[in-house]
């Protein structure tokens, strides 16, 4: 409805004065009503007529001319529009489109004026227009804006008062409100340039980069999970931190672009450049069982192409996946030429549901890197030793022997009555206690290990004794849980170089060690029945323990409760003729057709795709060698020691590598894949082969043999590129002024809205490019403009003339983004942690948000909330699970991050009201804010109310506002004095503790008052 308003304003203006402009006045009408059948898409074109080009429109066919310049009555187009005959009338009745009388009048006038065509405005490179004169001391931005305002009979508003101005600038530049001290300093600074000094301070704040990064991460579709099917965790956060850093260091936008599109391809890329290339890896991926590899590769390349074209050029190239773009000059073939830049990416179709789907970059410190290299050398040497030994092995498949070798069984006891003799036993909790029969339950032997705990406690050793893992091992332990004092969870842990192998029973979140759904933390199900001895068994394969590994420590761990442990042992049973680890034949038969993740890729494909009978001798030999080296458990006398050494080294390497952060990065395959036009966008219908290239309607790539993503980045950044600079300044304009100069900031094509101020947009684009793509400089020019500094108060006249404030006769006003709303509450309350960067955190979230949508096999199926400081980090650092994003964010229109998004909605819903009322993070923030009010706000209610207003809303309250605030406070106070138990409950909400020195009823009354201020419309807007 609002946009209709605006168009009417526009059309009225166009009608009044100048000559019609094709791009502003005519193309939208033709594009909406005619191009679907008479446009760019050759396949859908009717009557062989195209109206998107003058040659087509002016052409005479069988004596009929669609558009006869200067002669509306002689133009078939007008005749058909006016026709009453349903066979003739255009647009056709089936299209459900209808031209308004005003549109018909405009078309008529256009033909009368000569029917001039122009290329779609945004496809012509911008040139710097002259800045309008007339305004005394106005900067270019204001000069352009004032000229347009005058045409519409509107006047700019006066400058906002300083309190509102500094609040607006601070929220816009840092995502946080100003402190009362900052406001006071600004109010007191009467020297010229006071506001500019505030802006410089804000641009220099580390908060600036965090705030700016948020918007870019929407465009980059950044998240902390893969996004499809299991939606497991993915490690991408170093890329997020790089974006923050890039904004803070004011990395010029051309570098910012090149590094992200092609950082991996630059000569000797730096760590930052490679991390930045992770932009290309932010798309959603899957490892769902039934998927088809080709289809996944196709989809990822499509997503990457669409995202790049959308983010840098504002083009909706996705339409051309299936058919020639109906409105914009991107043919299907051209789309796939762009897609070819991405189709050779080295990452696999199946993401493997793992944290680090290759290619990845380990972000090790120099010392860590050195140690890792040393490990690699040693592992390679051990590997070679194993390989050499295999050559001497004369392998006979036991499955081929008659009679088959006998079945062997055995058991080794690891713990009975005591820890191993030389083990150095440690504890968490009270001292290690053994009980004898009579003192407590004992299952076997003389004694059992018993512990009563609050929280996590354990008995363990990791030094002094070791045990070798047998093949087919099954670990068993006896436990007795006290029915009167149940634990939340019990756990067995095994140390092989590091603590990497754990089995637990009971609640997943209780004992915090290990990554869930990995061998580091294997869920074995419910707790055993209490009040009786139960033998728990764990298959070594489940824990990632391999035969030959040396276990040099174990731990008995529990959370709460009283637990008795007895007799830990490992048993094995070997039937060589039927065993995957003795018989290559059995292994081949069992594994054929499935994906064996441990195999190198080519062997993986062999085993998966080809029946054993069809393997060539050479293929069989390679596989057998691999199997002997890695799986075969016979020939112990030859291999055992060697393999154990290798496994031990690998285990130690893993323990180190796990501490090193890593991130997904981009890389291309050494041999590019051939890209094809995919017929009708179907992955299994490859048509004509294509090479890398760009759409012909735009400037060409320089002549070269081959192209890669670097060339694409340069093409985006070329002065001949009509879109990149415009799209970028527009997106930033939108961030600061609420709406872009082109409202459809994601679509600059012919279906997008025309710019409200075309000359201003072009001036800004050229200026931005020619001054070195300096982002801070551009933003400085926005926020120091008079337009930005105006009062936002709207009069009915302004609302009627320009409801969306496109003309900026008043200052920008809009609701804060989801993250800013939460961060502001934390900041005002004093809870916000200033820490920058790092792995995503899990703050408060209602129960049952992840759980109902999650697959039980997913490692993000259950939300285990963090505690302490992690609850109070900026929202930028909240762990982002794509299939169930944080509800406190999505309620305020944060996108799910499944696809690129350059413009958020701003909805206004009852769910937002509920979240602000009852979300524990808002209630706790209100409590903490109330504590500040009581301690810092002065002695009287009036002084405290003023302090609260200044801190939350950024200004002093008016008398009537003070009256309402104090009235509410008095009512709350009376109620809480009468019901002190309610007051205690309220102030105890949340993890942080209320100040015990403050009386609960007073604190409760102020908590509600503080919450009231945090929820005001004015507080939620800027």
């Amino acid at each position, binding site marked *: 409805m609002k946009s209709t308003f605006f168009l009417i304003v526009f059309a009225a203006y166009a009608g009044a004065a100048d000559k019609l402009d094709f791009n502003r006045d005519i193309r939208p009408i033709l594009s909406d009503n005619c191009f679907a059948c008479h446009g760019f898409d050759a396949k859908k074109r009717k009557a062989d007529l195209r109206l998107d080009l003058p040659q087509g429109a002016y052409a005479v066919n069988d004596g009929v001319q669609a558009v006869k310049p200067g002669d509306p009555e002689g133009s078939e187009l007008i005749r058909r529009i006016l026709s009453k005959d349903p066979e003739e009338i255009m647009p056709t009745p089936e299209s459900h489109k209808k031209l308004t009388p005003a549109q018909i009048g405009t078309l008529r006038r256009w033909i009368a004026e000569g029917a001039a065509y122009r290329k779609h405005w945004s496809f012509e490179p911008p040139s710097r227009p002259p800045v309008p004169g007339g305004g005394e001391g106005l900067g270019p931005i204001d000069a352009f804006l004032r000229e347009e305002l005058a045409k519409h009979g509107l006047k700019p508003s006066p400058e906002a008062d300083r309190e509102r101005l500094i609040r607006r600038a601070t929220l816009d530049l840092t995502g946080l409100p100003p402190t009362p001290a900052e406001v006071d300093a600004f109010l007191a600074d009467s020297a010229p340039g006071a506001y500019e000094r505030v802006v410089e301070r804000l641009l220099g704040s580390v908060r600036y980069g965090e705030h700016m990064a948020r918007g870019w991460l929407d465009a980059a579709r950044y998240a902390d999970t893969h996004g499809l099917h299991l*939606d497991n965790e993915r490690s991408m956060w170093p890329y997020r931190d790089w974006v923050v850093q890039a904004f803070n260091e004011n990395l010029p936008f051309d570098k910012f672009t090149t590094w992200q599109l092609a950082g991996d391809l630059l000569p000797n890329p730096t760590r930052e450049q490679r991390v930045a290339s992770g932009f290309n890896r932010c798309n959603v991926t899957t490892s769902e069982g039934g998927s088809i590899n080709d289809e996944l590769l196709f989809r990822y390349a499509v997503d990457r192409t669409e995202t790049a074209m959308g983010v840098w050029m504002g083009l909706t190239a996705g339409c051309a996946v299936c058919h020639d773009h109906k*409105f914009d000059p991107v043919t299907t073939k051209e789309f796939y030429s762009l897609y070819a830049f991405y189709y050779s990416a080295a990452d696999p179709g199946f993401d493997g549901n793992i944290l680090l789907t290759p290619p990845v970059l380990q972000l090790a410190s120099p010392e860590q890197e050195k140690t890792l290299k040393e490990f690699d050398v040693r592992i390679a040497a051990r590997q070679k030793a194993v390989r050499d030994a295999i050559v001497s092995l004369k392998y006979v498949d036991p499955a081929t022997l008659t009679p088959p070798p006998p079945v062997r069984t055995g058991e080794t006891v690891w713990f009975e009555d005591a820890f191993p003799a030389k083990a150095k036993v440690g504890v968490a909790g009270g001292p290690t206690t053994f009980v004898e029969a009579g003192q407590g339950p004992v299952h076997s032997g003389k004694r059992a290990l018993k512990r009563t705990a609050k929280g996590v406690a354990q008995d363990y050793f990791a030094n002094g004794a070791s045990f070798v893992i047998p093949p087919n091992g099954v670990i068993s332990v006896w436990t007795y849980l006290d029915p009167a004092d149940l634990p939340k969870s019990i756990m067995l842990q095994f140390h092989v170089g590091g603590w990497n192998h754990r089995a637990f029973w009971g609640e997943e979140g209780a004992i915090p060690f290990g990554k869930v759904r990995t061998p580091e933390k294997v869920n074995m199900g419910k707790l055993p029945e209490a009040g009786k001895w139960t033998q728990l068994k764990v298959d070594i394969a489940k824990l990632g323990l391999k035969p030959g590994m040396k276990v040099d420590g174990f731990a008995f761990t529990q959370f709460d409760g009283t637990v008795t442990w007895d007799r830990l042992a490992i048993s094995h049973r070997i039937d060589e003729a039927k065993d995957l680890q003795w018989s290559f034949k059995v292994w081949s038969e069992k594994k054929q057709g499935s994906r064996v993740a441990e195999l190198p890729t080519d062997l993986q494909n062999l085993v998966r795709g080809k029946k054993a009978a069809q393997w060539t001798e050479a293929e069989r030999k390679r596989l057998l060698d691999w199997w002997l080296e890695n799986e075969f458990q016979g020939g112990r006398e030859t291999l055992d020691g060697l393999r154990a050494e290798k496994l031990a080294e690998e285990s130690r390497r893993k323990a180190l590598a796990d501490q090193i952060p890593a991130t997904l990065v981009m890389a291309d395959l050494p041999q590019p894949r051939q890209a094809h036009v995919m017929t009708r966008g179907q992955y299994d219908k490859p048509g004509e082969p294509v090479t890398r290239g760009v759409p012909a309607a735009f400037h060409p790539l320089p002549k070269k043999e081959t192209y890669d993503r670097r060339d694409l980045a340069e093409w985006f950044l070329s002065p001949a590129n009509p879109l990149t600079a415009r799209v970028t300044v527009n997106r930033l304009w939108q961030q600061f002024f609420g709406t872009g100069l082109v409202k459809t900031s994601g679509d600059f094509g012919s279906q997008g809205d025309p710019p409200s101020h075309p000359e201003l947009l072009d001036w800004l684009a050229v200026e931005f490019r020619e001054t070195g793509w300096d982002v801070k400089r551009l933003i400085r020019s926005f926020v120091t403009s008079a337009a930005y500094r105006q009062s936002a108060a709207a009069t*009915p006249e302004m609302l009627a003339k320009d409801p969306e404030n496109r003309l900026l006769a008043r200052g920008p006003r809009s609701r804060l983004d989801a993250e800013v709303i939460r961060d502001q509450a934390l900041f005002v309350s004093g809870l916000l942690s200033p820490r920058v960067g790092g792995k995503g955190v899990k703050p408060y979230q209602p129960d049952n948000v992840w759980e109902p949508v999650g697959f039980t096999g997913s490692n993000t199926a259950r939300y285990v909330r963090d505690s302490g400081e992690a609850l109070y980090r900026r929202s930028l650092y909240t762990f982002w699970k794509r299939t169930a994003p944080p509800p406190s964010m999505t309620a305020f229109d944060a996108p799910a991050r499944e696809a690129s998004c350059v413009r958020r909605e701003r909805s206004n819903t009852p769910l937002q009201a509920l979240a602000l009322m009852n979300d524990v993070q808002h209630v706790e923030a209100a409590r903490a804010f109330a504590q500040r009010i009581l301690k810092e706000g002065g002695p009287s209610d009036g002084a405290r109310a003023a302090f609260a207003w200044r801190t939350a809303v950024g200004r002093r309250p008016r008398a009537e506002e003070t009256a309402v605030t104090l009235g509410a406070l008095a009512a709350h106070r009376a109620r809480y004095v009468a019901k002190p138990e309610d007051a205690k409950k309220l102030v105890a909400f949340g993890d942080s503790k209320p100040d015990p020195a403050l009386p609960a009823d007073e604190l409760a009354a102020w908590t509600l008052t503080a919450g009231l201020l945090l929820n005001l419309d004015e507080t939620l807007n800027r």
Partner: protein
Amino acid sequence: MRCSGSTPLASRRDFLARAGLGVGSAALAHLLGGCTTAPASSASGGLPGLPHFAPKARRVICLFQSGGPSHLDLLDPKPELERQFDKDLPDSIRRGQRITGMVASQARLACQPSRFKFTRHGKAGTEFSELIPHIAGIADDICVIRSMHTEAINHDPAITFFQTGSQLPGRPSMGAWTDYGLGRMNDDLPSFVVLVSTNKDRSGQGLLARLWGSGFLPSAHQGVQFRSAGEPVLYLRDHDGMTRERRGALVGAANELNRIHLAAAGDPETAARIAQAEMAYRMQASVPELMDLSREDKATLESYGPDVGAPGSFARNCLLARRLAEKGVRFIQLYHRDWDHHGGLHDQLPKMARDVDQPAAALVRDLKRRGMLEDTLVIWGGEFGRTPYAQGGANREKYGRDHHGKAFSIWMAGGGIRGGMVHGASDAFGFNAEQDPVHIHDLQATILHCLGVDHERLTYRFQGRQFRLTDVHGKVVKAVLA
């Protein structure tokens, strides 16, 4: 409206009178209507000109069966598979159709008959499997479509396709489209409500919030999930130490301050926020009331089966669906999971059917008894069916089936649909939709048609083109209309 004299909140009309903008009330109402979200009022929101024609259905209850229920063992009997037991699926039937990665390496595709008996029911003698006797019992009220087909062969894309008309994430769901197009019919509840049931034996099929998302439509149109565990609506329950009266006072004070601000700054969004806070306050009462089944009579409760007592069960959600329908919720979307029987179908399918059969039939009967079936459209079905060949080997007793989108079955009832009929047919193997095929987009077009909406004319401009639920496809299936 539930605003009684004692509440501190002003009604919308009071607010309009008191807001104190220097414009007439008609202009102000217009400004309010122009907000991203229309404030609460009867039948508010929606697009001008909609519905396009007189609707047969005023609301929809979609009982979505996620995972791909086997049409061959429930709704579409195939005696030919009995004759072809363990023989290869003929190439003339398969026609090069792609198969999933899960059976791609299987040596052969062996025909697998159903081990379950089918018998005829209702005036038309429609055949139903012995696993769904209650649904068979409403044969005269429902229309079984045996010629459904879809394009996707994996869950995630196929469910997304069913719910949003596209295999890729990012499009609005059916419920979001109807809310966008038709607006709301009640003051106290969201217009698009989602209920996800949990299974007794949960195998772990995931469901993604985007399935009820609003895609590129304003987020106010997204479905609101009423949850079975914890609070029914997020953040609904007042926090500790809060009472209804205090909450009312707080909302009242906040809105008093917001009105002062509205008068000073003049932004219509402030007015919308005032209205939404009041709606939130009303929902705090209306939603718990809705979830409270204590006033349902015993016979009704029993008709939904023994699970109705368990929060989060399909039975409970069916009953809640009826209650939501009564309150004027436009689109009620249920999800029931775990129909994905690659193996062990013989064992698992009867359990799944037992969970679903009685409650689904009870819902239709309950609606009918209350005179609501004629204007409530009920849909039962999943994202695809299952293969006529076995996954693994064919077996008389124990078997499994893979995903299959070329032919499957659903049923519909009420709201403009002709009961007691079968529409379309699959081939003798149940592999291809042979007679009167119904594509997912056709189904979507038909659902919108029942609501009085021409699917080609309910569009939204995004990224440069007019999008619709049915993309550029979809034909209303006239034959199933009453």
